[in-house]
């Protein structure tokens, strides 16, 4: 029987060739990590620097010889700060690129949408989102977050406002997974200090005008307004509040009261806005490293993704050649953050220690990286700022 070379067989053979090559390479193929951050949308002002930091850490690790003899390759995708787009992007990262971790999801609605894909495919998800509900998902340990949860944030927000004379706090909240929880915790924190949460309006972020919402808020005669917003809607809200003649105090999240907000509203509109955010560990060498990568003072999220990549690399190195996948990160990431072991502030230093067979306690740019079983960070400091004459001034870190 003769072997006939048909066109079809040639075609199939030709198609199969690259795959044969890929299989042979698998053992020393790069380890792929997915960077899934918002390059556009409400989080668009953070994504680009987050991605830059992710790449820089990977480059540093690769320059030092990689992890378990393999290079790290970062595959990027844009969430558009939109759950639909984020799920499509995550599918591509997980199904096509076969990443073993997804890093840097921003905005709780996005993270909530992406999370099931990750845990079902045994891919580790590192996030900077804060909603309580995220770590309450049945994620089997495949979610880790460096952002303090809503509970902790709402508590601190309430304490701060009460300590600064708040008696009646009204909340205007964008429709997010933490709007309801946040209001509840805030109410408890205020009540504990003799103040009260006097109402909440949850608004639709996609609207261009919030006049009726502002009218409803002012009807309750609040002395503080808690603006649980993102930057684009906050800019609109502040204008409406100014126009309405509101003279009381305003309080919001640091990710909303950022440089872009200052650029988009006049100084008299943003005057007196107090914001708070989880404070990175500004004295840490890791923080200095992030600053060097970006060339300016880093935002908390860039600091957090610096830690995400470092933790992923160290967990994989700790797992060794036995398995380089999401399960390996899942199994070892909690051993990396201490408290036992020698303290390191970068992935490269940690890799050296691990290679020498020592235990590692990674403390990163965002602070200590110790996690509870459910994936929450154990403790965190907050930084409070106030806007005066169009510029941000730090009030306190506590």
């Amino acid at each position: 029987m003769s072997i006939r070379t048909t066109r079809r067989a040639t075609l199939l053979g030709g198609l199969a060739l690259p795959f044969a090559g890929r299989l042979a390479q698998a053992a020393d193929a790069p380890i792929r990590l997915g960077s899934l951050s918002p390059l556009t949308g409400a989080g668009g002002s953070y994504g680009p620097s987050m991605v830059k930091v992710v790449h820089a850490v990977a480059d540093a690790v690769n320059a030092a010889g990689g992890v378990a003899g393999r290079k790290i390759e970062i595959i990027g995708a844009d969430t558009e700060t939109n759950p639909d787009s984020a799920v499509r992007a995550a599918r591509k990262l997980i199904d096509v690129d076969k990443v073993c971790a997804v890093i840097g999801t921003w905005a709780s609605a996005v993270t909530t949408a992406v999370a099931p894909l990750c845990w079902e495919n045994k891919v580790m998800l590192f996030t900077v989102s804060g909603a309580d509900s995220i770590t309450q998902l049945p994620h089997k340990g495949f979610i880790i977050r460096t952002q303090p949860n809503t509970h902790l944030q709402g508590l601190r927000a309430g304490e701060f406002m009460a300590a600064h004379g708040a008696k009646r706090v009204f909340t205007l909240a964008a429709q997010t997974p933490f709007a309801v929880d946040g209001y509840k915790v805030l109410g408890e924190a205020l009540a504990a200090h003799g103040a009260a949460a006097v109402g909440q309006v949850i608004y639709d972020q996609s609207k261009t005008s919030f006049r009726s919402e502002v009218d409803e808020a002012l009807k309750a005669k609040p002395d503080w307004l808690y603006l649980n917003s993102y930057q684009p809607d906050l800019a609109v809200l502040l204008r409406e509040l100014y126009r309405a003649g509101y003279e009381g105090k305003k309080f919001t999240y640091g990710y909303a009261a950022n440089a872009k907000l200052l650029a988009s509203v006049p100084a008299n509109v943003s005057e007196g806005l107090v914001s708070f955010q989880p404070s990175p560990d500004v004295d840490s060498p890791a923080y200095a490293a992030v600053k060097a990568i970006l060339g300016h003072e880093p935002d908390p999220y860039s600091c957090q993704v610096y830690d995400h990549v470092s933790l992923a690399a160290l967990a994989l190195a700790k797992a060794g050649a036995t398995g380089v996948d999401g399960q390996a990160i899942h199994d070892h990431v909690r051993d990396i953050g201490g408290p036992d072991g020698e303290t390191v502030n970068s992935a490269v230093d940690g890799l050296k220690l691990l290679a020498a067979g020592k235990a590692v306690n990674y403390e990163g740019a965002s602070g200590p990286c110790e996690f509870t079983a459910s994936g929450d960070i154990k403790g965190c400091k907050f930084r409070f700022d106030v806007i005066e004459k169009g510029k941000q001034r730090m009030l306190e870190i506590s």
Partner: protein
Amino acid sequence: MITELAQLLINGVLAGTQLAVPAIGFTTIYAVLRYLNFAVASHATIGAYAGFVANVWWGWPAPLALLAAFVVAGAFGLLTDELALRRLRPAGPLTVAIASVALTIVLENMVRFAFGNDLRGYDLPVLRDWHFGGLRVGPQQLENAAAALLAMAVLFLFLAFTRTGKMMRAVADNPMLAGLKGINAEVVARLASFVGMGLAGFGGMLIGLDTSIDPLTGFRVLLSVFAAAVVGGLGSIPGAVIGAFVIGIGEEMSVVILDPTYRTAVGFLAILLVLSFRPRGILGERAY
């Protein structure tokens, strides 16, 4: 309660005047070209950004910038219709409508590419509202309403008294008869694209004047614009104005009984009700 309702009514009327301009643009294109051009969304955004360039970068005052918004968005409308949509017209209105959705996404992303995703504001002072009898109204809102009313008045005069305006109405009414009378349907179609998209751009900038702009500015109001046109009667310009008021007032009044989160649903609800009981809209499509 009465004061509250009165305030909501004022808000609704002012929102309605703003909404009416792009709704007229949308319905004009439908009247002449017989398809739903969802690219009004991106053209509203393009108008808003053209106005931004004129106002902030070049320092033009707002009324001149509004004119720039009209002209630039109109020119884009003409161009995109020539390049993308016109060839698809023989394939039927549904094909063109779907293509216009694609077109709007492409254009929106071109704006994003050129200007970035950041929120931008016009170079205008934010003024305190005027208060009277427990009610409040913003100076900027009133200026916007005046600009919108002026634009509508000019359009009505154009359609009622100029030769070109009458040509447009003739083609909208009966293209074949208009053709027999020697009216060049292609020229009128181009004019409709220009005027329709120009109005969308004008409306986009009005919305931006009151708030701020980003590449999604137009897309956000698309549903309300569409609802206004459908409620009033697709193809009818007075209908679009009435529809815009119904949607504007409806959306604002809905907060009395609904959580503001569900305000967007008002547009859908209005379409549903009108299509169930009066499928041709409040005025019907042949009303001018």
